[in-house]
């Protein structure tokens, strides 16, 4: 391949990575159909491949692609049989036809990504499809990349995406930022989709790669974009802070193919830049005076980041924050985390007392972290028999090789003490 071709290829890859979502969001606004908009953008990408290495990459590639995709859309729509009757529907698009501005500045290009994310994360769409659709439309990931990230078959993922796009079109899910009355529910759905993407990258629940950085970084990038578009919404800032603080520890989370839990991590490998930014954002969010679950979780992560050593962690503060989180989201999983903090702040017996609730034991019976936590608490109390049993159960429930190895090592050490 000669160098202009490589140059063109690189420029296109950069666009897919960085600007795909913004271009697609504008196209959907004008065309009204996600699938058609995607096809037209794909057509425009192919044109770019031909044109750019002949006449060079344009000054603002995004503007060129946007205009080309619009023309492709008009061509496609003109060819449909009832175009005449649908002319009103495409007024906005046709109006743009005479706009030959292939050179408009980036700043002049509107940002419609908020409409896109609220549409893709509409609670009327199945949750897994929301995640996939967001990665496809705003992240520019291909179907096979998304399938790979979620360890799904490509065919199944493609069907999921097709079904979701069809539901948006046929059920009349609007391409708009929701009204105030729907706001809390809808924003919550957007944030939970972003957090699901991040978590999938952070702790691959199955498979052998413990951290899939790409998904974490994609989630952070999207959350940054949303945060810039909706300022003064403390839960968005809180979520961004939470992701940055978690991500700051990703380098220290494994060592020579082994999982390293936080208390054993080499804290000099934590990213100081991410911690600084994360902590600044937590403060900014909390200052708005509307605390929420993401802000509290980010604050907990910030307290961890403040300790130079595990033994210097302010566990009283963390236990209090978990208590506050439990009042907002009273789940057994939050209780479990609170118990870990209490075990360091007040002692192991207090922690075990907190986890005695029968309902909790039932609900978490197949939850691996519950058994891993109980094992650790029993071990610290010196109850080797109970610890052994809990480690064995945790290993049974884990589907991640590194996690299994880690727990197996712990089990082995029990016998040595």
């Amino acid at each position, binding site marked *: 391949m000669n160098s202009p071709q490589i140059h063109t290829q690189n420029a296109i890859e950069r666009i897919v990575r960085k600007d795909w979502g913004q271009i697609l969001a504008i196209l959907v606004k004008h065309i009204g159909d996600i699938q058609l908009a995607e096809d037209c953008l794909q057509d425009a990408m192919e044109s770019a491949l031909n044109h750019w290495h002949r006449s060079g990459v344009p000054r603002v590639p995004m503007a060129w692609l946007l205009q080309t995709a619009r023309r492709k859309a008009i061509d496609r729509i003109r060819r449909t049989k009832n175009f005449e009757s649908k002319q009103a529907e495409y007024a906005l698009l046709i109006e743009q036809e005479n706009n030959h501005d292939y050179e408009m500045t980036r700043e002049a290009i509107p940002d419609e990504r908020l409409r896109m994310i609220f549409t893709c994360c509409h609670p*009327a769409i199945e949750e897994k499809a929301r995640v996939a659709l967001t990665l496809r439309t705003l992240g520019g990931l291909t179907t096979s990349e998304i399938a790979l990230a979620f360890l799904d078959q490509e065919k199944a993922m493609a069907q999921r995406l097709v079904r979701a796009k069809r539901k948006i079109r*046929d*059920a*009349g*899910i609007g391409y708009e930022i929701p009204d105030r009355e729907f706001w809390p529910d809808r924003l919550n759905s957007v944030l939970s989709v972003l957090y699901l993407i991040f978590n999938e990258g952070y702790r691959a629940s199955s498979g052998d790669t413990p951290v899939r950085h790409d998904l974490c970084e994609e989630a952070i990038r999207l959350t940054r974009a949303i945060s810039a578009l909706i300022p003064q919404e403390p839960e968005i800032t809180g979520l961004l802070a939470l992701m940055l603080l978690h991500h700051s520890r990703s380098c220290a989370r494994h060592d020579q193919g082994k999982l390293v839990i936080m208390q054993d991590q080499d804290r000099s490998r934590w990213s100081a830049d991410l911690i600084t930014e994360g902590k600044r954002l937590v403060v900014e969010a909390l200052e708005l005076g509307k605390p929420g679950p993401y802000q509290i979780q980010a604050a907990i992560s910030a307290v961890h980041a403040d300790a130079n050593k595990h033994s210097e962690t302010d566990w009283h503060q963390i236990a209090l924050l978990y208590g506050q989180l439990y009042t907002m989201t009273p789940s057994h999983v939050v209780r479990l985390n609170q118990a870990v903090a209490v075990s360091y702040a007040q002692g192991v017996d207090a922690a075990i007392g907190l986890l005695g609730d029968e309902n909790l034991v039932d609900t978490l019976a197949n939850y691996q972290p519950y058994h891993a936590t109980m094992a650790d608490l029993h071990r610290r109390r010196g109850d080797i028999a109970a610890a052994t049993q809990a480690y064995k159960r945790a290993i049974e429930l884990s589907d991640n090789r590194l996690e299994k190895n880690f727990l197996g090592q712990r089990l082995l050490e029990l016998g040595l003490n």
Partner: protein
Amino acid sequence: MQYMALIYTAADAGPQPGSDEFNAYIKEYQSVTEDFKQAGVMVAGDGLQGTDTATTIRKRDGKIETMDGPFAETKEFLGGYYIFECATLDEAIKYAAMIPTARFGSIEIRPFMNYN
């Protein structure tokens, strides 16, 4: 777009006929129906008699088979419907949420088939 809001409820859920609560519940239905008309979204709406009045038929080999009652035995049954004319699903959700039965039953929102 036109949406049908299908109102599902169980017989033992919500106010029972003959009680004061039931009269208030019926009044509430009259009042939201008026609201739907005022908002310009009301196309149609009706309540259905209970499933004990239902007859299910099917045609097999050219012969009509007639059966008493609903075809499938489910606790929640279709009690009535509204048809709304709305621009988007969110708008339909907004009006469906005003249906009194939404508080203890459930409302299924279905867009009409588009034959164009």
